[in-house]
């Protein structure tokens, strides 16, 4: 019979988790947490250590160094010389922030409009948006459209063609429809217009879903590389494309024509770029984590 059951039987009704933890169990829990932390942190540490290593150390450690004996910043000096990586990082940040803001604005406006029962042609607009979830135009028609709009080799080509996602529209619209409509009717009676209701009432109640949808858009813009490959020249590539080029350094398809006397190992350069690309995410995520957790749960539970 378990301790909890015994307690219940004795009438104390204290669940096990409220009892004082036993020293043995504390040790077991601590060990488990240490192992899990180690498994999570070890790859990151190895990436950092490898980025500081020479070719000899990388080769002698089968490609993944833990403790570099002669750490060197050569890989970081190489990737920061001239500013390719820093410029790409800035581009990605700007595209992500601007793109996410615009996408959220457009999605929120359309979602709110589609919740209004008196919207003329509302069903038509909704069906048109949902149609894009099932059918995409294909690479060449998209390219032709972007070209005809004069967006080739411009940053707008990464934002405008994917400004609104039908999936996110449905999520936001569903959330808005579950808000208490009586509030909005009362506001209307008091003379508030739709725009005022949206800004003053709907948005403050929707922080969780906006954070989640904003995350979806943000991750999409941050990781976008196919459109960047198709529409941009390499001098405007975002960080995802630059990172991909560095990752491809280790591929056998590379042509080994004569190059200058550059001795920084390709794996060290790859790991250095990975470290640099992690920095913005590590900085931003702790501030947004509670919104995501709350938002995911809010979206999951109806009523």
């Amino acid at each position, binding site marked *: 019979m378990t301790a909890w059951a015994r307690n219940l039987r004795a009438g104390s009704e204290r669940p096990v988790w409220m009892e004082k933890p036993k020293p043995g169990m504390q040790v077991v829990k601590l060990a488990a947490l240490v192992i899990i932390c180690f498994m999570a942190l070890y790859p990151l540490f190895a990436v950092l250590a490898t980025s500081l290593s020479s*070719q000899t150390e990388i080769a002698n450690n089968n490609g993944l160094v833990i403790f570099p004996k002669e750490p060197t910043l050569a890989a970081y000096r*190489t990737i920061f010389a001239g500013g*390719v990586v820093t410029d790409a990082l800035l581009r990605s940040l700007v595209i992500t922030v601007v793109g996410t803001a615009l996408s959220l604005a457009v999605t929120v406006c359309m979602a709110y409009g589609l919740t209004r029962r008196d919207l003329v042609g509302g069903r038509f607009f909704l069906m048109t948006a949902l149609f894009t979830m099932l059918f995409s135009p294909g*690479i060449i028609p998209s390219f032709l459209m972007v*070209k005809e709009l004069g967006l080739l080799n411009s940053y707008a080509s990464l934002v405008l063609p994917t400004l609104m996602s039908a999936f996110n529209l449905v999520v936001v619209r569903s959330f808005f429809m579950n808000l208490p409509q009586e509030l909005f009717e009362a506001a209307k009676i008091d003379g508030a217009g739709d725009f005022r209701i949206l800004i003053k009432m709907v948005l403050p109640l929707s922080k969780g879903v906006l954070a989640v949808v904003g995350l979806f858009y943000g991750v999409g813009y941050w990781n976008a590389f196919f459109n960047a490959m198709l529409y941009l020249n390499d001098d405007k590539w975002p960080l995802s494309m630059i990172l991909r080029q560095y990752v491809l350094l280790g591929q056998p398809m590379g*042509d080994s*024509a004569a190059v200058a006397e550059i001795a920084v190992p390709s794996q060290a350069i790859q790991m250095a770029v990975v470290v640099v690309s992690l920095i913005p995410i590590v900085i931003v995520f702790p501030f947004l984590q509670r919104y995501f957790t709350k938002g995911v749960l809010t979206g999951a539970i109806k009523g």
Partner: protein
Amino acid sequence: MASLGALTLFGAGALTACGQRTANSVSNAADALLPKTIPLKAQTPDIAGTADGVPAAFYKYPAPFRSVEKAPLNGGTVTAITNLFGTAPNSRDKNPAWQAIEARLGGKVEINAVSSDDYGTKFNTMVAGGDLPDLMLNDGSAIPNIVEFLEAKCADLTPLLGGDAISAYPNLAAIPEIFWKNTVQAGKIYSLPIPRNLTGGSGFVNQTLLQKVGLSSTEEIKDKDDFYKVLKDLTNPSKNQWALGSTKFGMTMMHHIFRTPNQWRNSNGKLTRHIETDEYLAAVEFAAKLYKDGLYVPGSEGWTKSQMVNAFISGKVAMIYDGLPAYTGPTGYGRTLPAANPANKAVPFIPFGYDGGKAQTWLDNITFGTVMLKKNDDAKLKEVLSVANFLAAPFGSEEFLLLNYGVAGTDYTMDANGNPIATDRALLDTAVPWKYLAAPQQVVFDPSDRSIVDTLHSAYSKLIPLGVADPCETLFSPTQATEGSKIMQPVSDAATAVIAGRAQIGTLKDAIAGWKKNGGDTIRAEYEQALNA
């Protein structure tokens, strides 16, 4: 409905016409007026090249000479699309090397550099959009309907480059005739070659480990049984050492030993694909035996290139397959193996015949690709060719130094022997893919150690005379262009399964029969038609 029917008929008719034109568009380089080769009287190499194509060799960078006096562009702009391998370069406004090159050119070059993995997608999308640049790389796989594309969109360069006409472009004229054969389609010169050193070689071996089992070179191995014994002696899993370990089993080495044909064998106008030969099956069966007996690092067939490189230079693996250009330079095996394992030395693998006779290597690295010029008026074509002439400046020239090493003082400094030593910013400044728009014939050069140059040049001297060319390299088969890779994949997968012990040789034979049925025989017929035309 009637209009839809008319559209269908029209569309079908157009497609049929398209299919008929493509099916008969076979081509042979022998039909074209190739450019005359006019060697440049410039630098004297330390080891001369040969008429066979063995490259010249230099122990140090020679005193630079100027090969192009007049700026090719007069303030104009040339556009281009080509491959990008490795890092993206610093942008023009932050790239002194790019600015210096354009100052020498007298104008701008707008390059659309695309990762090699994405080149097909981007290039074909650009073609569909009707927006072609002046210079376009043909990497051999991006354009399935190449003949139609060349005829419709690309300039016939024969009047400007054929025969003596090429003397207007001295750096291009210095490129030997063998490299120009790949630029011919339907009897016309449609592109510029990007030369390589003819053969990719047979791989590399750790000579120090080989010496421990009593050999100084793989040339001393008598036959396949002797090779097996050597591999067994080189394998000691308890000491973390194996004889072999390469991506996809490093089969090129085995094929050279067993004298597998280079893609096709031509017997009096009759073609046999390499996979249909007894030599191919023998090489696969031998590799399967080696794998089964534990002479390959388990799982090494799935290694990335980085894993293979690390295994070799750490001494875990004694023999690998990698291209010969991977021997020189600061990341080449000539330097990295001794740096990781002092007293160890890497040398190229020189193959022997499986039966005690001579081996047979492949001339499988003649050109990296070719570069097409968009159709244009003669004045523009000449301007673009002048730019290409600049980019094809030979080793030892000021232009070559600028294109490959960057700006003196910023991207490199000269050591006491006059060799350029790169600075930290050189990698990104020199990453602009000029060398994939036009390039000279390659040389062997490594300023760090004369023995590296001697070893590699010696290897080329032995391997190139043993080399056989692909008899269909300069021919075109429409079915090969559209279906070739797809129908060969099951054969490649079956070979991998047989070597790894997951399937019997019968599986491979069935896959080869499938290749023949699904298009292989059609490809053969098309190539034979071109060969015998």
